[in-house]
């Protein structure tokens, strides 16, 4: 079973959320961020080149132009490989744990797995981010030393910052699947 929903991120862009139910104890979220738009690519390239030409007319050294080519190319490669995330996946398997996967635009993937025993709770938190105040979904990890303590807070979907509805739904989803202890006050979706 699979359905798709559309959300907006904090910058007003569109995000597509796919939900896949494999079995009652295994579900997957797949959040696709907006693609790299031609407009932003063109505008960044143009800015770099205009600056390079400006410098070139001042000091008349053609090294600047070749440097600009390299900067643009390396910048684009680095951006696609390390910064730009196309898709984030949250795979939840009851009794096993939560797997977070981010796939970058270049095809690189990075995966984190959190065992069920370490997951304390999945909550929505509120924070000040740049000049904004946002909601985000995060996973609390148990502290092995202190049974009531929290050792770490793992933010989820941090590269596609989303509007409130998404963390909300995702939190419902995770907790209904993970059967976390019931004092969430969250209804099943």
């Amino acid at each position, binding site marked *: 079973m699979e359905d798709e929903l559309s959300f907006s991120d904090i910058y007003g862009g569109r995000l597509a959320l796919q939900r896949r139910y494999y079995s009652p104890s295994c579900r997957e979220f797949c959040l696709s961020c907006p693609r790299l738009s031609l407009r932003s690519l063109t505008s960044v390239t143009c800015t770099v080149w205009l600056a390079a030409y400006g410098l070139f007319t001042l000091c008349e050294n053609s090294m600047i132009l070749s440097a600009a080519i390299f900067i643009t190319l390396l910048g684009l490669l680095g951006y696609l490989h390390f910064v730009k995330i196309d898709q984030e996946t949250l795979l939840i398997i009851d009794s096993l744990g939560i797997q977070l996967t981010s796939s970058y635009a270049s095809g690189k993937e990075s995966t984190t797995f959190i065992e069920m025993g370490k997951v304390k709770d999945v909550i929505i938190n509120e*924070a*000040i981010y740049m000049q904004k105040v946002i909601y985000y979904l995060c996973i609390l990890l148990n502290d092995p030393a202190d049974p009531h303590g929290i050792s770490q807070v793992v933010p989820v979907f941090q590269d596609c910052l989303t509007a409130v509805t998404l963390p909300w*739904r995702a939190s419902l989803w995770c907790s209904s699947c993970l059967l976390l202890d019931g004092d969430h006050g969250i209804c099943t979706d």
Partner: protein
Amino acid sequence: MAYQGGGGHDLGHDPSTALYHDSPGNTVTCRTGAHNICMVSDFFYPNMGGVESHIYQLSQCLIERGHKVIVVTHAYGTRKGVRYLTKGLKVYYLPLRVMYNQSTATTLFHSLPLLRYIFVRERVTIIHSHSSFSAMAHDALFHAKTMGLRTVFTDHSLFGFADVSSVLTNKLLTVSLCDTNHIICVSYTSKENTVLRATLNPEIVSVIPNAVDPTDFTPDPFRRHDSIITIVIVSRLVYRKGTDLLSGIIPELCQKYKDLNFIIGGEGPKRIILEEVRERYQLHDRVRLLGALEHKDVRNVLVQGHIFLNTSLTEAFCMAIVEAASCGLQVVSTRVGGIPEVLPDNLIILCEPSVKSLCEGLEKAISQLKSGALPAPEKIHNIVKTFYTWRNVAERTEKVYNRVAGETVLSMDKRLERLISRCGPVTGYIFALLAVFNFLFLTFLRWMTPDSYIDVAIDATGPKGAWTHQYPYSRKRGKNNEMPQTR
């Protein structure tokens, strides 16, 4: 603390639709009854003081009356981000730079993006700023007027007119208050002072006194020795509080009455005078100087005495005498500033600010005490505890909000006109120009992030409040408090 779903409120709803039903522009329903109030001040807990507790207590009582209240202040050390206090009072600790004395630096512009974001996401309708020392409070008033929100300001202090710093602050206050919807002062004396300082129309200034938590100041007759008479003084030992008068009163009364003791709480530059007096007249066993007191210890000092003496030379609203009366002490005070407004005549003996008059007042109190004519402490407490309660303050503040909600906010051209006409030729034009810049900056921000992109925060308090009491203060809720809130 993290928000964990809406409790029983949203059962059976799709949460996403439940949220967006009441999102854009539904402030009309709020106008009839409940308001969305945003308290702004640089001073809030964990900092301690009068303004801080005023904001906290007022917010709690307004929440109880069904309003939505949030508090905005600057970050204190590691305490930054969003926190929830008792009854779901939401506090934003904004990462703004502190400049001097816990007050943030003001450039009039840098706080606009964050404040605007908060005002929009919380659907705030009324901005209530506190304290004229707080730069953030003035900034918020300035931005709120640019955004077309209604504004209320509470002034907590009295000011002079003569020295350079007060001339500057008064000018700033004139600019800040000339287009504010309503101003609240703590006593009639303070109102007079504010009206004169900021050249305001007295009709838009209300008087709402401070309140005392009567449960904090209860009498305890067993703590005092009835074989001797104890006079308590709790104040900062400075000129303004009349410490010089005190140094004249102590030897005179101590010679006259052999069973009279003094307890003096407080610290200050004039302490040396009292120590001299104690030395010269050999009163070490009868005059105790306690030094600086924490607010929580004040009650324990007060209950040891029979008579409370206040020798202030100027005072906006004397909280100390209310606290003393609430502890069941007979109050003797000077007749200055707002003091005659504070207590009824049968609970206070008012004197002129001179040694002779104060000694007469004290002798009157002592003779009443010896003849047993004074009412029992418990009785005085029961009378006083009805005078200044936070619920009453909240009720009266609510009336101000209702009035303000019915008023119109000045449009940009009218606001500029008023700034130019009220604030003098130079300052007026400067601030009118700044107001225009602020408006342009706001337009730019609205273009960058339209209001529709900003998601609506889930109300913790107010008519649609999601804060529930059904969970005990369990491990989960307790622990989440300590989580890092910012990234």
